[in-house]
C-alpha cells in the first residue's frame, strides 16, 4: 500500500480505552480494561476463546456500543462518530463475511464504494489489492470456489480497500493450515512495514509473538499482563522449559520429585513442565534422579508459558 504516504506521528494513541466494559444481558464479556494502542505499532490481544477479545475488537471497530467506560478510536468517540471512524478503519472479522455469489473483484469494488470512493478508484484499488493478496489470477472467479486461506486473504484485501489507518484482525488465521498462515503473516508484515497500525486478536501464541510489538494477555474479560512478547516472557517465565512426557498413569508424584531442578514446575494432564535457566542441565539431573520419561524436550519459553503462569490454564485446549 502506498507506504510512501506521510506516516502519522508515532506515539499518538490510535485507540485509547479506559475502564471499558461490555455487557450482554447479565454476562460481562469485558470487565473494565485499559488499553492504549499507538500509531504504527502492531498490538495484540492474546487469550483463550471467550476471554473478551472479540467483544473488545467489535467495540473498537465501532460496530458494537460500549456498555461502560471510555473509548476513543482515532481520537473520536465511537458512539458519536461511528461512521467517521469506520471510514478510516479496516476490519477483518472472525468469520469471512464475503459475498460468495460475486467475483473477487466485485467484492472489493462494492466494498470500496461504501467508503465513498469513486468507481475509478475502487477499480484501480481492487486490481492492486488482488495482486497484494496473490489472487490476481482468480479475480473474476466466484468467491464460492476459493479455499479457506484464499477467502481469508481476500477478506484482508477487502479491509485494505480504503487505505485504513488502523487495521483490526480478529483471529486472522484460525482454521487455516500452516502454509496458509505463514503466507498471511507475510502479508501482514508488509502492511506493518508500510506504516499501518495493526490490532490482532489471537489464541495462538506463536502468531502474537511473530506479529506484535506489544500485547495484552486477556483472561475472563480482564487484562492480566501487558508488554512486549520478550518482556512478558522475561517477566513471567524462565529462559528455558523442560517438557517431560510419561506413559499414561506414570505421571503421578513426578512433579514433586523434579521440583528442585527448576525455579517452578507445572503439571499438565499430559506432561510436566520444568521452568529453568538451563534445560539440558535440568534434564541430566532428572535422569540422575532415576526419573524415566517417555520423551523429553528442552525449548525456549513462549507466551504460552506466560499465560499458564498467569492463569494456571493453557491457551488452546
Amino acid at each position, binding site marked *: 500500500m502506498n507506504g510512501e504516504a*506521510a506516516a*502519522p506521528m508515532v506515539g499518538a494513541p490510535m485507540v485509547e480505552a479506559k475502564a471499558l466494559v461490555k455487557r450482554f444481558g447479565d454476562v460481562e464479556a469485558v470487565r473494565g480494561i485499559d488499553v492504549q494502542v499507538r500509531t504504527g505499532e502492531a498490538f495484540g490481544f492474546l487469550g483463550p476463546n471467550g476471554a473478551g477479545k472479540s467483544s473488545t475488537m467489535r467495540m473498537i471497530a465501532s*460496530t*458494537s456500543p460500549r456498555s461502560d467506560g471510555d473509548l476513543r478510536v482515532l481520537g*473520536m468517540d465511537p458512539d458519536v462518530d461511528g461512521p467517521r471512524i469506520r471510514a478510516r478503519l479496516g476490519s477483518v472479522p472472525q468469520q469471512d463475511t464475503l459475498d460468495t455469489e460475486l467475483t473477487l473483484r466485485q467484492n472489493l*469494488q462494492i466494498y470500496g464504494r461504501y467508503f*465513498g470512493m469513486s468507481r475509478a478508484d475502487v477499480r484501480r484499488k481492487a486490481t492492486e489489492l488482488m495482486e497484494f493478496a496473490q489472487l490476481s489470477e482468480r479475480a473474476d472467479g466466484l468467491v464460492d470456489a476459493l479455499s479457506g486461506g484464499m477467502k481469508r486473504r481476500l477478506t484482508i484485501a477487502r479491509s485494505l480497500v480504503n487505505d485504513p489507518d488502523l487495521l483490526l484482525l480478529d483471529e486472522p488465521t484460525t482454521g487455516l493450515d500452516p502454509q496458509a498462515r505463514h503466507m498471511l503473516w507475510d502479508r501482514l508484515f508488509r502492511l506493518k512495514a508500510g506504516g499501518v497500525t495493526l490490532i490482532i486478536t489471537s489464541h495462538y501464541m506463536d502468531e502474537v509473538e511473530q506479529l506484535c510489538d506489544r500485547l495484552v494477555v486477556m483472561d475472563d474479560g480482564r487484562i492480566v499482563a501487558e508488554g512486549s512478547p520478550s518482556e512478558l516472557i522475561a517477566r513471567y517465565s524462565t529462559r528455558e522449559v523442560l517438557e517431560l512426557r510419561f506413559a499414561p498413569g506414570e505421571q503421578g508424584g513426578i512433579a514433586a520429585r523434579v521440583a528442585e531442578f527448576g525455579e517452578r514446575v507445572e503439571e499438565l494432564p499430559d506432561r510436566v513442565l520444568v521452568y529453568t535457566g538451563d534445560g539440558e542441565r535440568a534434564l541430566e539431573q532428572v535422569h540422575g534422579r532415576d526419573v524415566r520419561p517417555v520423551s523429553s524436550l528442552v525449548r525456549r519459553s513462549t507466551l504460552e508459558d506466560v499465560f499458564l503462569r498467569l492463569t494456571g490454564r493453557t491457551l488452546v485446549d
Partner: protein
Amino acid sequence: MANGGTASGGATGSGTTGTTGTTGTTGTTGTTGTTGATGATARVEIGSRSAGRVVGSWRAAWLRVEAHWTWYRRYWRSSLYSSGLQPVLFLAAMGLGFGSQVEAGPATGGLAYVHYVAPALLVAGAVQNAIGESSYPVLSGFKWQQDYYAVTATPVTAGQLLGGQIIWIVLRVGIACVVYTLVALLFGAWLNAGALLVVPIGVFAAVACGVPIMAVAATTYNEGERFAAIFRFLVMPMILFSGTFFPIEQIPAAVRWLAWISPVWHGTELARGVTLGGLGGWPALGHLAFLGVLAGFSAALARRYFYRRLVV
C-alpha cells in the same frame, strides 16, 4: 500521556486535513481541527491517510442498491420467473384459461374475467415478489452470507442498509410490474390508460407487505422455518381470499373482516378502482392510508430490529 497524544494528534490532524479535504470533506474536517484545539471535550481526529470517508444517508442507501444491482446483473436470469413470468402465467392460466369458463355477470361487474382479474393479479404478483425478496435473502444477509455485518463495518449504517434494501425491492418489483403490464396489454387485458396507475399501486402494496417480512427476517435466528409457515398460512390465504380471483362478498360475512385487514385487498381495490372505475375518493384515500400506515409502522420496526441485530 493522554495530553501529549491529543496535542500531537491535533498537529497531525491539521497537517493532513489538506489531503482529506481534496477527497471531499473539507468543511467538517476543518472545523473539527479548530474546535479540537479549543474545547477539551470536542473530537480531535488523528491524522489520516485513509481514502475512506462518510457518505450521505441517501447516497449510502443507493450504494447498497448498486451492490444489489451487481448481484442482479449476474443472476437476473434465475429471477426471471418470479419477477416476470409468474404473474403473466397466472394471467394466462386464470384470466384466459379459467376465465373461459366464467360467464361475465354481477360478480365480475359485468366484465370479462380477464379484465376483472388482470389488475388484481398485478398486485398479487408484486406482493408475492416483495415478500419473497424480503424473507430468505434478508435472512441470508444476517445469517448465512453475513454480508450485512461486512456492510455495517464500513461507514454505511444499519438504517441505511435497510433503506437500500427497500429501494432495491421497489425497483425490482417496479420493473416486474412494468413487464407484466406490457404483456397483459398484448393479452388485451387492459380497458384504459388507468393501467398506468396500477404499477405504482402494485409497488406500494408490495412495499407495505415486504417491509414487515424484513422485520421478521431481522428477528429470525433459526434456518427460517417460519417463512415457510408465513408463505402457507399468511401469504397464500391472503392472495386467495383478498378479492384477487373472486369478490370478497362471496366470503361468509362472519370471516369477511379477514379480507378487510389484508393489505392485498386494499391494493386490489385501488388497482381495480383506477382501471375499472367505481371507487370513490374517500375509500381510495382509506386504502392508501391503510397501506401507508402499514409500510411506515413496519419500516420503523424493521429499522429497530436491524440495529438490534447488527449493532450489539
